[in-house]
Each structure stands twice: as structure tokens, then as C-alpha cells.
């Protein structure tokens, strides 16, 4: 395979295993660039990347911007909620304006599923990267999770990966399920019944309503962030009860394989989905996920902008 089949990166559901593999392979030398004293390669010099974040997320935006800068691209960030450039403009006008201004890539985060795909349909030249759309997908997070697991475990095939928590609202869970199953890992999901949407089995995951059996013998455990508002929405009696039933503790994690890898897309609610001491525990890859995120995004940028 020479490159990615699609012009845009919208989700892992649409990607073939060879394409995912290509991104992961490309990310390895990128991680090397980040370890240099001068983190700069001229690969994307002259390219312009715009981050268009309708929903604020400093972590993801900075990760993309650093990835672009390390490769020599110029970046502009737009927060439509505050920017007069696009305030009140409809989606189509906004991206077509950005294209007319010369943007080579728009990295978009939106609270509604499907927006990156809609934008891609209205553009003729500019490339769209989905940085998280509603409950749909967060493909670069999914890719960095795959990359982290493969770096730590040396493989993906045959691994037992448990994803714990609010699957219903998690775009990360969806990207992880698609990516992991395509790459040959087995995925288990566990959470309160009110936070498990229908159809997860059809997506390829095994569904558990209790934490313990999902953890048993797992190679990797991914905890998801639980939002406070789930209680107000009537989906949970209380965060306390959630923590008591599904919160990860060292004792519970002992059910997994001895060399279990613990991951979390961040930011962590300490004491809710994870016991505070687990965040920095030896089994935790949470900080390395952040570092790997930049490398994987460099790979994505390179493959979508630099390859041709």
C-alpha cells in the first residue's frame, strides 16, 4: 500500500487494516524526531493547517499544532465560539472560506457527529482531519491508543483489551473498537447498562455488565472519562456509586494479566474512573499516550499532506 485510500481522516470505521498499519509504522520515526534536541523537520514547510474547534479541547488542539510545527507547517487556530471570522456563519461558508484562504488541512472538533464528513463533502482541495465529532469517532486518539499498545506490547493480534466506562457517549471507545478489532485484538466493553448503547456486539465487542469478568486476564485496560452530567441526565444514581461499581483500583486491576497496561484518553477524574494512585503507577501508559499522540498526528499529517 502506497498511502491512505481516503483524502480525509474521518474515522477508523472506514480504514483498512493495512492503512492503520501504515500510520502506525510511519509514527515510529516521528517519535524519533520528537526525541531530538531540535524537534524540527522541513517535511511540511509551506503547508497551512487550521484547527477549527467548535468544542474546546486544549490538549488535542495543542497536540495537532505541535505535530504540525515539528514538521515545519504553519498553524492557525480558530475557535468559532469566540472568533469573529466565523461566528454565526454556517458550516459550509466557514470551511469554504478557510479553503479560499489557502488552508491545506482543517482539523475539526465538533460536538455533533458527522460534521467532519459534511465539511469534507463541501471542500475540493483542503483535507479534513476529524479531531473528535460528537459520540462518533476520534480517529487520531484511536490510532495513538493502537500505537501505544503496540509499542508497549510488541503486537496487537490476540490481545485482550477491556474498555471500561461510558461507552455510550465515547467517541474514543468507538474508534478503539474499530481499530483494535481490525488489527486482530479482542475487545471487551464494560459499564453500567445505561451507558452501553445497542449494537456493540455487532461492532465486534464483547459486552459485560460487571467490571470483574471484563478485567479477568486482560492485557490492556482502557478507562474512559465519566462526565458529571450523566448523573443529572438520569443515567447514573451518583458518581460515588459509579466509582464503587466500575472505578478501577489496584485490587481490581489485579484480576487482569500481571503485565497489564493501563490507559486513559484523559483528562482523568481521579477517584472516579481511576483510583488516584493508578495514574502514575508502573502499569500506566497515560503519559506516554500523550507523547505518542503527537507522533501519530505527525504521521497522519505526513501521510495526508506530504505524501503527494
Amino acid at each position, binding site marked *: 500500500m502506497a498511502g491512505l485510500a481516503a483524502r480525509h481522516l474521518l474515522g477508523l470505521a472506514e480504514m483498512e487494516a493495512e492503512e492503520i498499519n501504515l500510520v502506525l509504522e510511519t509514527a515510529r520515526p516521528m517519535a524519533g524526531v520528537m526525541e531530538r534536541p531540535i524537534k524540527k523537520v522541513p517535511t511540511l514547510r509551506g503547508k497551512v493547517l487550521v484547527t477549527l474547534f467548535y468544542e474546546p479541547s486544549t490538549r488535542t488542539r495543542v497536540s495537532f499544532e505541535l505535530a504540525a510545527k515539528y514538521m515545519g507547517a504553519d498553524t492557525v487556530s480558530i475557535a468559532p465560539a469566540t472568533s469573529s471570522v466565523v461566528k454565526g456563519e454556517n458550516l459550509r461558508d466557514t470551511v469554504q472560506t478557510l479553503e479560499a484562504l489557502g488552508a491545506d488541512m482543517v482539523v475539526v472538533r465538533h460536538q455533533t*457527529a458527522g460534521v467532519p464528513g459534511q465539511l469534507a463533502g463541501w471542500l475540493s482541495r483542503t483535507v479534513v482531519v476529524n479531531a473528535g465529532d*460528537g459520540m462518533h469517532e476520534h480517529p487520531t486518539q484511536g490510532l495513538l491508543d493502537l500505537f501505544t499498545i503496540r509499542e508497549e506490547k510488541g503486537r496487537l493480534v490476540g490481545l485482550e483489551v477491556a474498555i471500561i466506562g461510558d461507552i455510550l457517549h465515547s467517541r474514543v471507545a*468507538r474508534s478503539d473498537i474499530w481499530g483494535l478489532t481490525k488489527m486482530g485484538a479482542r475487545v471487551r466493553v464494560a459499564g453500567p447498562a445505561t451507558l452501553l*448503547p*445497542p449494537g456493540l456486539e455487532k461492532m465486534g465487542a464483547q459486552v459485560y455488565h460487571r467490571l470483574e469478568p471484563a478485567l479477568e486476564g486482560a492485557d490492556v485496560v482502557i478507562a474512559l472519562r465519566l462526565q458529571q452530567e450523566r448523573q443529572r441526565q438520569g443515567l447514573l444514581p451518583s458518581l460515588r456509586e459509579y466509582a464503587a461499581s466500575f472505578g478501577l483500583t489496584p485490587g481490581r486491576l489485579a484480576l487482569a494479566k500481571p503485565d497489564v497496561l493501563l490507559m486513559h484518553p484523559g483528562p482523568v477524574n481521579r477517584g472516579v474512573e481511576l483510583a488516584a494512585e493508578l495514574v502514575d503507577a508502573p502499569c500506566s501508559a497515560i503519559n506516554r499516550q500523550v507523547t505518542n499522540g503527537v507522533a501519530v498526528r505527525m504521521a497522519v499529517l505526513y501521510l495526508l499532506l506530504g505524501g503527494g
Partner: protein
Amino acid sequence: MNPIVSLLIKGGRVIDPASGMDQEPADVLVLEGKIARVGCDLPAPAGARVVDASGRIVAPGLVDMHVHLREPGYEHKETIATGTRAAAMGGITSLVCMPNTDPPADNPGTLAWIAARARETGAARVWPAGCITKGRRGEELAEMASLAAAGAVAFSDDGFPVARAGVMRRALEYAGSLGRVVISHCEDPDLAGGGVMHEGYWSTVLGLVGMPAAAEEVMVAREIILARLTGQRVHLAHLSTGLSAAMVRRAREEGLPVTAEVTPHHLALSDAAVAGYDTSTKVNPPLRPQEDVEALRQALAGGVVQVIASDHAPHAAQEKEQDFDQVPFGISGVETMLPVVATVLVKSGLLAWSRALAAMTVKPARILGLPVGTLEPGALADITLIDPELEMVVDRDRFVSLGHNSPFHGWKLSGWPVMTIVGGEIVMDGRQLLS
């Protein structure tokens, strides 16, 4: 313009489901706006315009009992003029317009204004529905007797359900005493939970908030129980699930006065069509899984569901270019209702032409008590000619309706209307609107 005094439609396949007629070749003679005779080799009166209908189906003008014309209040979406012209393009000669305008038709003044406006600007007959409750708030009954006197042919809070069962009970009793049917939009708002599509595999994959089939089904069950309690008629709008249809079948077997309609889009599309996020697939009730689509087709074929209605819900282009959560629900449906039904149900062999046409003519006319939907001598000369072989690709950008929100864009459909006659006057001929 001068109405044509007499018209002879010659040599077509005349299908009149009201009388059970399906004959070819046969002629239809129209005199002074009424059907004069139907038979073989009718002589043309002097000065009559003769229409060659060979190879065409000659049917009663279609009756679409569920249309949103948007005027007054939302003229950027549709007007009575544009909506009825679009209907005429779709072979529809009579339509019921829903009262969720601004102001809503919850008072006789607004309803009479709509009726008058339709007489002035309408290209098809418009039969307005009035609101069930004041302001469509589901609390106090609207002045139904006054609305009926002003021309309301039915009552509905469509778009909103009547959430309180006690209010619905009184509405059925009161409307029933006026000889009017209540049309229920079956949706439990709490269960629907702000969903934007059907809750199932596809809502999970697409990451959109789902509304479960149960949101419709618990209300269908409620309306059937209230029909039993009151003994009054209830018509269930846009049925979308197999369980809803099963409950209606049971109710009808029991002899309860329950009727139901289904839309062309619920007969033709499943929730898989939402993949790709075409905002034209956002509709309420939502597109359902394929097994529901099959169940609805069977319910229609078996007579459990009597009516096909478009639920024409046009929106401005700008409104459909928002993100999926923001986009309003609805499909612009009058221009594609007939060819979708012809292609998906008739051409596929599931439904005979006479049955399909019954669901769009005499069945809704009888439920509403309208003097249309038949070719019997003496009836109003509302006639639609259909070319069952005509194949065309749907181009929503060429819709007559101001609403271009169609999920059928790019579909190759056959069985298009080629002439629409309202009261003996030709309003559409050869896919062109006249005047």
C-alpha cells in the same frame, strides 16, 4: 383563465379503487369540472379537448392527508402556492395541511385565513387540519367546533404529541362528537429523549442520539386504548415500526375505530440510510431498521395500514446545511411520493396498482369524509395520469417545492405522474406546471 368546459381522456388504463374498476382501454369524460362518464369509446362532445391516455394509468387525483405547507409563519420553507404546485407536480390534487404554522391553526381565524389563501393561490385542493390543543401545548382543547365550522377536516397537534393521556381522551370525545377524526403523532417525548435518529446499531456506530422504537409504540398503545375507552376514531400518523403495525392489526381485528398511515420514506429507506450523515435522512419518526420496513410493507399490503401520506416537511436549504443535531426534522415529499411507491412497492410486485392507488385516494378521502378520491360519475373531476414506464432520476435541486430536503436525490424512479387535473382544469401536463 378559462376552464376547459369538457375534456375526454381516451384510451387509458382507468383505475378507480373506490368502485373497484381497473379497465383498459377506457375513457373518462369530464364536463364542467365533474366526472360525467367512464366507459369505452365515448364520443367526444363538440369542442371537447381530447387527451390521448394510451399507455397511461388514469386514476383519481391523489389525496395526501399529511402535508406541511408552512404558511403562515414559515414562508421561507414553503408557501401554500409553492407547496400546492409541488403537490400538483406529484399528481396530488387534494391535501390536508397540518396546523403547526405560526400562528398555529388553533383558532378559526387562522384556519379560515389558510382556507381562503389556498382558494386564492392553491394549485391543488387544500383541506386544513386544526389543532387539538391551544398553542399545540397539549393542555387545553382548541375550539374544535369553531375550527370545524371554519373548515377543519381533522385535528392534530402534529410535530408535538399530546403528552397527557387525559387531554387526548377528551380530544377524542370532543372531536368525535363533531364527526372529525383526530390524527395522532405518536411519540413519548421522555422516551424520545432528544434523539435525532432511530436508536439501534446505526445510532451507536454514527454516534448520534437515538430515539427508541418504544417512544412511538407506547403512544400507539395508548391511542388504541383511548379509542377503546371513548369509542371514537383515531388516525395514527406516519407509523414506523413493526410493533406499531402489529398493535393496529390487533385493534382493528377487535373492531376498534383505528386507522393508520405510512410514509413513502418509511417504506423505502432504513436507518442505514443515515450513514453518511445526509441531513435529508433526519426525519421524525426516524427511519427504522430493515425489519420494520418489511413489516410496514406487509401491513400496507394486508390492509392493516390503509393510507400512504407524504408527511411533506420542507425546509430551506440553509437549514439543512447545519450539523445533524441542529437540522430540523423532515423530508420534502410530495413530488416523489407516487414514483417512490410505484418503484418500491408496485414495480417490485408487492402491491397492485389498484391497492397502491387506493391508499393515496379513496382510503384517506373516506377517513376524512372528503368528497374526492374517486372517478365515479358526479364526482369532482380531480384526475391524475401516470406513466408507469417513465423513468427519471430524482433531482432535488429541480423541485418545485422550496424544500429540497430529499433523501431520494439521485434515485432512478419509475411511475411518474404526467398530468394532474383539478376540478376539470389541467394544472400539470407533461411534467410542466401550467400558469
